[in-house]
């Protein structure tokens, strides 16, 4: 009868194992979904933001992209050579960055003397930064209808806490910031900063 007991025990063990494996699969599916949700959200948000930006341009008032949004589109940033265009948001919070590049409050505003600093995620909205070269043209159109053209002067890699921007006196500048290295999976202390200065249109 020892044999029967062993079979029973084995069956119970197998059931537990099946449960565990099912859990593992479920957790995996959930995590994958969560991961895939991020770029999906980033893309969908840009479409809504683009519409809101067009409305802002027409009405000359800030427009929310969706009813419960806590930020508004501020400007449209594009790199014509790469055909990349992104709607920049006015809140530099980490939540807003899931939807689009944001203008950091520490920097200057578009159209003002000083350096405007725009940050975005390196794996979604600012993935194209790696393809931007020295000499490339960046254009910015604000919701007030102001148009600015910038020329890329170079790039640096800096630690997040070792960065300083030229303030007023150096003319109108634009820095685009994202995490570095582009292909890293984990978060790190390095930031990739693309420098551009205004050129007259």
């Amino acid at each position, binding site marked *: 009868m020892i044999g029967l007991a062993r079979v029973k025990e084995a069956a119970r063990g197998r059931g537990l194992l099946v449960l565990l494996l099912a859990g593992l699969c479920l957790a995996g599916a959930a995590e994958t979904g969560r991961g895939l949700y991020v770029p999906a959200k980033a893309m969908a948000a840009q479409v809504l933001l683009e519409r809101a930006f067009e409305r802002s341009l027409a009405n000359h008032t800030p427009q929310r992209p969706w009813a419960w949004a806590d930020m508004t589109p501020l400007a449209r940033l594009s790199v014509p050579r790469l055909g990349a265009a992104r709607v920049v948001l006015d809140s530099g919070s980490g939540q807003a960055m899931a939807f689009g590049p944001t203008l950091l409050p520490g920097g200057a505003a578009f159209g003002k003397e000083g350096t405007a600093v725009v940050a975005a995620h390196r794996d979604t909205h600012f993935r194209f930064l790696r393809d931007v070269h020295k000499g490339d043209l960046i254009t910015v159109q604000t919701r007030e209808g102001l148009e600015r053209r910038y020329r890329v002067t170079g790039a640096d890699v800096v630690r997040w806490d070792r960065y300083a921007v030229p303030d007023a006196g150096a003319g109108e500048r634009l820095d685009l910031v994202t*995490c570095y290295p582009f292909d890293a999976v984990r978060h790190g202390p390095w930031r990739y900063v693309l420098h551009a200065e205004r050129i007259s249109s």
Partner: protein
Amino acid sequence: MPQSPAFRPLAFRGALIPAVVLALGAPAAVAVQSTAALAADEAEDAATDDGPAAGTLMLRGQGIAESLPAVRLGTDMDVTVTGQVARVRVTQAFRNTSGKWMEAHYLYPLPQDGAVDSLKMVVGQRVIVGHVQPREKARETYEAAKASGRKAGLVEQQRPNMFTTMVANVGPGETVLIAIEYQAPVTQANGTFSLRLPLVVGPRYTPPHTLTSAPAVEDANAVTAAPVLDPKVGSGLNPTSISVRLAPGFDVANLISRYHKVNITGPLDDRTVRLAESVPADRDFVLEWRSASADPTLGLFAQHTDKGDFVMASVTPPADLSNLPTPPREMVFVIDNSGSMGGDSMDEAKASLIHALGTLRPQDHFNVIRFDDTMTRLFDHSVAATPDQVALAKRFAESLEARGGTEMLPALKAALEDAGTGGGADALRQIVFLTDGEISNEREMMAAIGADGGRSHVFMVGIGSAPNDYLMERMSTFGGGVYTHVGTPAEVAAKMMPLIDVLSHPAMRDLSVRVEGGTLDLTPARLPDVYAGRPLVLVGRTGHLAGTLTVSGTIGGKRWERRVDLASALPSPAIEKLWAHRRITDIEADRALGQMEDAQADAEVERIGMESGLVTSRTSLVAVDETPSRPAGARLTREELPINLPAGWDFDTLFGHDAVQSRVGSDDLSAMQAQALDLPQTATGFVGMVGKGLALLLAGLAGFALLLRRRTA
């Protein structure tokens, strides 16, 4: 972008904790790599996580000297050329200008085929003669003398063309002379003899993936030990004077110093060449000459010793004057655009490449690969050399900018990949490699050519004022090609022409060497590929020199044979050491090709080094003064002597970010105010999440599969 950051996604590796992700990630990485085609930026994707991660300096461990050293060095080279061998005495004067007791380390180059056999240390009126000891033992002898306050000198080999002199306990205001002697064969091509004396070691790039063990790190440190003097501080460091007595045994004509101004005196068959003024050690000294008579005497020299007879024979096949059409070729050009190429070198490399592209014919196939720490293939596979494609390649070459590290191995492997599509199976497959060779993993390159060489012939074009001639010579010999050096932008056309000529004629076929009426232990053990006008130099050892040596082959469609009566050799005192050096080169080749274990190779090199009294990778020369000079209690300060940046190199490109930034701060933007700003975290890390999720899912499914199988079983 100019200051290309040198960081690479190191973080990637850490995230791959679940083993399954590794399995998932590998094919993904391969997929990324294989798509690396036209656009340079795409190739950035392919940059593996092996890239430099140590900081903004692309050169690991290579420091910058911001001030002049306490110990000043002056070098004198006294050269005597007899027959086809140069005997060189290098005297290094270490002068301590400080008030402290000093130890100085100096890293310097010697010809890659030079055999160092003598060390003398001169202290005041006394001359101390050095002895050969196994490397570790010599180091101990030196350290013991250093600790006890006695003067000591040590000469170590770091690479066949790179040595370190260490001198300990140089008192305040004192000068210690270190004199080493070496001999090296004179090289010959198309009737021109040349002598190259390298004067400076170019800063080397160490690929991070080679730093796997403590000895590897120590080795990398040794070859990058010398800091480079910031050109803003001065450029005339390490003054060097050179005098050459040229008695080759025939009347000398067309005597040219390639890169330095010289004064020439004496009769035609015994010329004396002196540098017009002492020069900073920042570029190779090259002397070239021809014979005044049409046919120079045969290069056959012998030496009789107690250990046996040694003979050197250099046999030159005639110039290929055949009108045979050049077979269709597949040419793969590989161009180095790493940071060390910044300045004149990049221009030379581009001009050389464009020159070579211009010689392609429509029936040829070709491709261009550029590399720094990333790599781009212009075309996925070799394409027909139509005018459009060649024009595209020229534009591609024009657009290259020097930056980043020197990851040469992936580029070499890509070039060696033989798809067999470039012009068919009987096409001549040639790889033309343009680089300064400033890397520390030379052995990996040789191993790669040895393993994947196939039917490809590798031709090296050494670029710049001080290229790594050891790498060039070895890669071209392993690859069955030739080595050409382009030292200034002005000589691109002059130096590329002979190479183009070699490229359009296949190597000699059915090459064979026979000895009749005697025996001869010959080096090199593997016969290299021989081209028209370029000599095959054989060095042999035998109990008693007798008989004839026959070299034969087919060149230009014709049978060619040359017989040499060994008994008619001229005496030369240099052949024994030449033979020992050649033996070591053979052993190193076996090691690189994986035909000899490290330990066995080391032991063999040590044995030959001790027997012949040569400095090798395993043996060093050490000289110790018997009388203590540094008083007990006085401290000893160690100094790595800085070296000049090789002429034509661009300091800012090489040292990149830091150097450029400090200049931005001081010059053009000095009036600019800056405001500190913290930068937010800007990565969603969704790739990691997806990867983790998939890994979990896969693990679960795998578990189920296993369970199912067990149940059915």
